């Protein structure tokens, strides 16, 4: 392949450029930044709702991969109703539909993880989120990720490291660490990246924690990364509006896959 230069472009929602240029940049570079997608009050509500949960169960998922100085929460929609405004953000769903729609009838929420990286945490190993699936088909994305900055993301406090253009790599050993850039963004910023894009949490060398909410969206015929049926109580899931319920898996793929008696789509 001819050498290409990759970058992470940034789009301001207030500029009303529409979905297409954003998707174009995402496809080209494997990642894209979006600003001003939600009011700051939404971000503050999400942080406020998640805070007690971080404190009570944030350490449950600590591991070498997740880090030992990082708090993580799953079952986010069972803990923060305001998070639904990020998870089911119309622009995110529109972009997900554009990227994933050619390969499925409907997509679902893969996982929703709130991540608070504490001072002193080391950089996370670069990885592709879609490696939870054992099959890769060049040109087919199995999932995309939407990372919301709930605090400012800076080079010092662990802004996510991304390798632009790495979604195009077909040889695992051709990844070069020095092509990594950090996706700094203001509180409320949104980083979108493809399931094939190499990335990793940054080291937090500041003296403040940094908080993000990472939501993934995957093809509706795949198993979902987080078992929402077990992490978000059904009664809570069903209290959300239809698009959120569908994302949580209270729907089927094309009428038969994921079937249960009460689904709306059961038909001939």
């Amino acid at each position, binding site marked *: 392949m001819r050498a290409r230069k990759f970058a992470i472009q940034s789009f301001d929602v207030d500029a009303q450029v529409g979905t297409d240029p954003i998707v174009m940049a995402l496809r080209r570079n494997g990642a894209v930044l979006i600003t001003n997608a939600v009011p700051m009050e939404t971000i503050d509500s999400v942080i406020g709702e998640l805070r007690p949960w971080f404190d009570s169960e944030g350490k449950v998922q600590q591991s070498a991969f997740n880090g030992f100085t990082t708090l993580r929460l799953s079952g986010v929609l069972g803990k923060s109703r305001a998070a639904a405004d990020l998870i089911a953000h119309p622009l995110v769903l529109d972009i997900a539909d554009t990227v994933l729609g050619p390969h499925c009838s409907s997509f679902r929420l893969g996982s929703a993880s709130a991540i608070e990286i504490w001072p002193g945490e080391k950089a996370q190993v670069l990885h592709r989120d879609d490696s939870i699936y*054992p099959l890769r088909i060049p040109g087919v994305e199995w999932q995309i990720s939407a990372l919301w900055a709930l605090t400012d993301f800076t080079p010092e406090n662990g802004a996510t490291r991304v390798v632009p253009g790495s979604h195009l790599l077909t040889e695992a050993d051709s990844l070069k660490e020095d092509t990594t850039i950090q996706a700094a963004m203001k509180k409320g910023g949104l980083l979108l990246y493809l399931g094939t894009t190499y990335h990793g949490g940054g080291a937090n060398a500041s003296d403040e924690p940094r908080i993000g909410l990472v939501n993934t969206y995957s093809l509706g015929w795949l198993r*979902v990364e987080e078992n929402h049926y*077990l992490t978000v109580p059904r009664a809570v899931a069903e209290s959300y509006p239809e698009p959120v319920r569908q994302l949580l898996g209270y729907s089927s793929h094309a009428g038969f896959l994921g079937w*249960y008696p009460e689904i709306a789509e059961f038909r001939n």
Partner: protein
Amino acid sequence: MGIQTRQATDDPAAIVEAFRRDGAVIVSELVSTALMDDVAGELRPYFDKDGRRTENDFNGYSTLRISGILAKSRSSALLAGHPLVLRMADEILLQHCANYQFGSLTGIEIQPGENPQRLHRDDGIYPVRMPGMEWQISANWALDEFTIENGATHVVSRSHRRREPWPPAAEESVQTPMKKGSVLFYMGSVWHGGGANKSNRPRMGLVNTYSLGWLRHEENHYLMVPREIAETYPEPVRRLLGYQSHGGFLGWYEGHPDEVQL
């Protein structure tokens, strides 16, 4: 080309070989008729109460169907988790996944007068097909004797190798009669369909599918078998119901049994 009928005492490796070659195989009288009577007895009230809820052109209008089987019949776990079935699933599916799960468990009672079901491939619920790779297999248990007259399943032998997207002609299929207690295996990519029931008695079967553990389940077991019931089953059955992860991360929930440290 037909479908072989093997004995339960045959070498499992030979049964697997016939399965791979023809895409389907029958194992005769693998379990006792007494076990089948237990399963049929446990399912009976649910067939009578819920059996018509999923009638449609594809499923038929003279056929009763029920799902959520493991919440209705504990004896069914002895079929769904039968060691020979798991051996077959291991051989066919574990090349492509770290573990597999139940796709669906469906009780099907074809009533007299039902028409033949159209030929189909079970793996058509997934939008990708890769030659030589099976996404799922099916085990169809005869809770009654399956005869030519009462609708023994139609199967097109070796049709897992067909690359044409259209169905074979109905005449290309053979019926797979088998005694009560027998099981018919077929690959997810094999063309098959329920037979017409021209007898004067219903015939009951239990069709269990097993799919790659990184795919979505056909039947939503989490919503159809309450967790507290699922967790009363032995470990292999709990896992097949989805209480496991694939490779430590996929399908994650707190307390899943596959924690790994990288």
